[in-house]
C-alpha cells in the first residue's frame, strides 16, 4: 500500500508527529511505501533546523530530515510555513517548501492519505 501522510500539529507540544513517525516505521516494516509526508498548520514546525531538543529526548526534526535523506518526499506548505517563520534559511535539510497543490498531488498518488492531528 502507498501511504501519504499529513501532519497538522507541531512537535513535542502534541503527539501527532510522534504517532505519525511510529506509524511510518510500522508501515515500512510491513513492506508498505510512504510516498510523502506533508506538514500543515503548526506541523510546519517539524521541519525547522533551529530545534535543539535535550540530548535524552527524541529529535523529531532530525527524524523528518533523516527520512527525507532516505528518499521519502518531505513537503511543507509555504503559506503555513511563512506564518510561522519557516523559510529556506530555517528549513531542515532534505525537506522542501511547496504549495497545497503538492498535497493534492500526494493524495492523488497515494492509495491512502492519513492525517495526524488534533
Amino acid at each position: 500500500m502507498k501511504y501519504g501522510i499529513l501532519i497538522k500539529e507541531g512537535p513535542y507540544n502534541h503527539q501527532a508527529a510522534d504517532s505519525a513517525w511510529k506509524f511510518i516505521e510500522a508501515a515500512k516494516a510491513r513492506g508498505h511505501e510512504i510516498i510523502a509526508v506533508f506538514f500543515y498548520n503548526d506541523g510546519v514546525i517539524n521541519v525547522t533546523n533551529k530545534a535543539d531538543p535535550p540530548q535524552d529526548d527524541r529529535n523529531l526534526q532530525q527524524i523528518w530530515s533523516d527520512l527525507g535523506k532516505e528518499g521519502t518526499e518531505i513537503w511543507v506548505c509555504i503559506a503555513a510555513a511563512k506564518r510561522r517563520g519557516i523559510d529556506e534559511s530555517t528549513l531542515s535539510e532534505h525537506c522542501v517548501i511547496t504549495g497545497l497543490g503538492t498535497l493534492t498531488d500526494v493524495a492523488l498518488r497515494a492509495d491512502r492519505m492519513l492525517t495526524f492531528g488534533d
Partner: protein
Amino acid sequence: MAEETEEIVKKFMHVMRRAPHGSIYTYEGLEMILIMAAFEQDITVVFVDDGVYSLVKKQETDGIGIKGFANTYRALDGYDVEKLYVDKTSMEERGLTEDDFIVDVEVKTSEEIGKLMQEQDVIVPH
C-alpha cells in the same frame, strides 16, 4: 502537479469541526479546500460540532483583531464546491437553523454524513 495525476479525480471530504476563531484550523482548512477545488477535485465539505459556527452570518471580528473570512464560503460556489453539508444534531444543539448560515447548505443526519464518509477517497479533518 505531476503529469501522471493530471487526469485523476478523487472524492475529498473536508470536515470542519471547530469554531471559526480561537484557532487557525478552520481558516487554513478553507485555504486547503480552495486549492484542492482549483485542482478540480470532487470536494465535499461537512460542518460538525462547533464547525457549524463558521457558517453563521454577520460575524464581527474587528474586536479580536483578526480578519473575518466567513464571506469566503460564498466563493466556493465559483470553484464548483457545492456539496456543503451541516450535521443536524450539531446545528440544533447550538440553537441554529439553516437561516442563520451565510450560504445554502444541506442539513444531514449524523448517519447520512457517516455514509458519505464511507464513499470518500480522502478525508481531511480541520
